[in-house]
């Protein structure tokens, strides 16, 4: 890229401004019956007030109705997969933290599972229980962020601030556990890195009833309001066949009625020992997806209670793992159910202590490919709602 290209943002739709809604191109299109149709190209730029991150959507609008929406991604492409080729297996764990930064715990877990599959490491049971507890708490925090930003996008800023009540408490628990508020580096190949502090489990069990109350208050505040229903119902309808053939997973697919949750149907770790339900939607619109996320938070609380009851003392790291893990040459793929869908990591090893190739199968990337199909025919203000209901995190989309 030379110096002149640093000044302009070019796109296939023509020269467009970064932030302002400036009319740059008016194309005179002719409809099939001969009447002229005015079409505007509006750039919803990489920096916009919706909090989901850096995504640029080049929108063709006819009046207020979106005729074509094309997302342009890559504004956060940091080359993590290339960087990982020059790090040891343990040094890659902090990099995976920064991929899905709203859910660092389960991204670490997906990567660790892949390394364990490749190297044949068996994780002790207490570590598996700790992984489940922290991952379910992380799922709660991630869904609160998603519900909050959905309500913030529809205008209910108060509900956004209320949703952070649960999220901040979860982050405080994680800070007591491993010292960091956002990027934890906690789940590592072979187990987890630190033992829980004294009284941590009791504090969580004491907090869970308060969290349920807070969540039902948020439910009444936002979803009980008919404006929220009016803004979310019927927006971004996705059919079940499309969800499967486009590779959607997580609440996006479950909101359309696809009954597929890796914790139940391709189960891993100690999940078979817990009794929980998987919320399934029926209409496939933004309302169903948001409700799926809300009910998943309740189910996560159930899992946490059962896990804390069942956990036994024991080692938290597998024995005899060297600091430089050098697995056998070959490849391995393993996946978990993250808050966004099925998150998988594919690792190729050539016998050296560094991965030969690391590929992250990110659910947010696959779900975001649905945006052009879902946003067509809706208004420009609903475009933001559709983007929010797909719940993208751009660290994961762009890697």
């Amino acid at each position, binding site marked *: 890229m030379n110096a002149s290209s*640093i*000044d302009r943002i070019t796109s296939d739709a023509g020269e467009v401004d970064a932030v302002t809604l400036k009319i740059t191109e008016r194309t005179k299109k002719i409809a099939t019956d001969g009447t002229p149709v005015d079409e505007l190209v509006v750039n919803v730029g990489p920096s916009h007030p919706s909090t989901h991150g850096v995504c640029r959507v080049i929108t063709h609008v006819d009046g207020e109705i979106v005729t074509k929406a094309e997302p342009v991604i890559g504004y956060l492409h940091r080359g*993590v997969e290339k960087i990982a080729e020059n790090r040891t297996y343990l040094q890659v764990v902090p990099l995976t933290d920064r991929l899905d930064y709203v859910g660092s715990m389960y991204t670490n877990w997906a990567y660790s599972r892949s390394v364990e599959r490749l190297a044949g490491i068996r994780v002790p049971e207490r570590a598996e229980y700790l992984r489940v507890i922290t991952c379910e708490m992380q799922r709660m925090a991630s869904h609160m962020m998603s519900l909050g930003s959905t309500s913030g996008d529809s205008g209910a800023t108060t509900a956004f601030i209320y949703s*952070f*009540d649960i999220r901040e408490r979860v982050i405080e628990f994680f800070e007591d556990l491993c010292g960091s508020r956002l990027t934890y580096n906690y789940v590592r190949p072979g187990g987890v890195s630190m033992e829980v502090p004294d009284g941590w489990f009791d504090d969580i069990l004491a907090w869970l009833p308060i969290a349920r109350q807070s969540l039902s208050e948020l439910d009444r505040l936002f979803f009980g309001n008919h404006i929220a229903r009016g803004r979310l119902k019927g927006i971004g309808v996705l059919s079940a066949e499309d969800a499967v053939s486009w590779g959607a997973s997580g609440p996006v697919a479950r909101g359309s009625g696809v009954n597929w949750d890796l914790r139940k149907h391709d189960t891993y770790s100690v999940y078979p020992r817990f009794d929980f339900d998987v919320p399934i939607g029926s209409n496939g619109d933004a309302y169903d997806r948001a409700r799926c996320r809300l009910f998943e938070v309740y189910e996560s609380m159930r899992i946490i209670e059962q896990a804390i009851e069942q956990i036994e003392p024991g080692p938290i790291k597998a024995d005899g793992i060297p600091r430089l893990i050098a697995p056998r040459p070959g490849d391995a793929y393993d996946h978990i159910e993250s808050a966004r869908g099925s998150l998988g990591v594919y690792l190729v090893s050539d016998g050296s202590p560094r991965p030969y190739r690391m590929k992250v199968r990110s659910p947010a990337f696959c779900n975001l490919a649905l945006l052009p199909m879902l946003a067509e025919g809706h208004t420009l203000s609903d475009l933001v709602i559709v983007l929010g209901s797909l719940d993208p995190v751009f660290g994961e989309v762009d890697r």
Partner: protein
Amino acid sequence: MALVDKLGAALDSSGGGIILTTVDSLADWARGKSLWSMPMGTACCAMELIAGSFSKFDFDRHGTFPRPDPRHVDVMIVAGTITRKMAPAVKRIYEQMAEPKWVIAMGNCAVSGGIFYYDSYSVIRGVDEILPVDVYIAGCPPRPESMQDAVFQLREKIATESIAPGKKREVEFSLPMPGAGVRGGDAE
């Protein structure tokens, strides 16, 4: 004496409620206590920026309120990794801000490239390659309290500037200042 104390004294006294101060201190007080911010949040630090604006840490009590429009703001908080594809957008938005404007670089990625400094082909190593930065906050991600401290440091820096062109007041900073945009530069 700080302007706020003078105001208190003026209201108490029976001398008629008159304050004598300089235009500079009035301007610095007004500018420093209401720094509206443009949250240029790209990555993980944006989550801490949002958490800093909400109830638990409450940025708003310091006068810093996030506004999404560059024309309304005084300070741009660059939070997160800036890549080569994003750099023209950040520069464009900075140019659209009205004078006087300041930049806070939040988080290791905006300060120096952070964890992506080595081996990345698309990351800009520090936002001071494209913008003049006033305050650097280290951390990955920094705590919201660090961000509030950055606002206080920025107020001190604003206090060194004068509305009379060309006049600058010397102020002692507790930490050595890095040269903006200069790799390995010493404090001059």
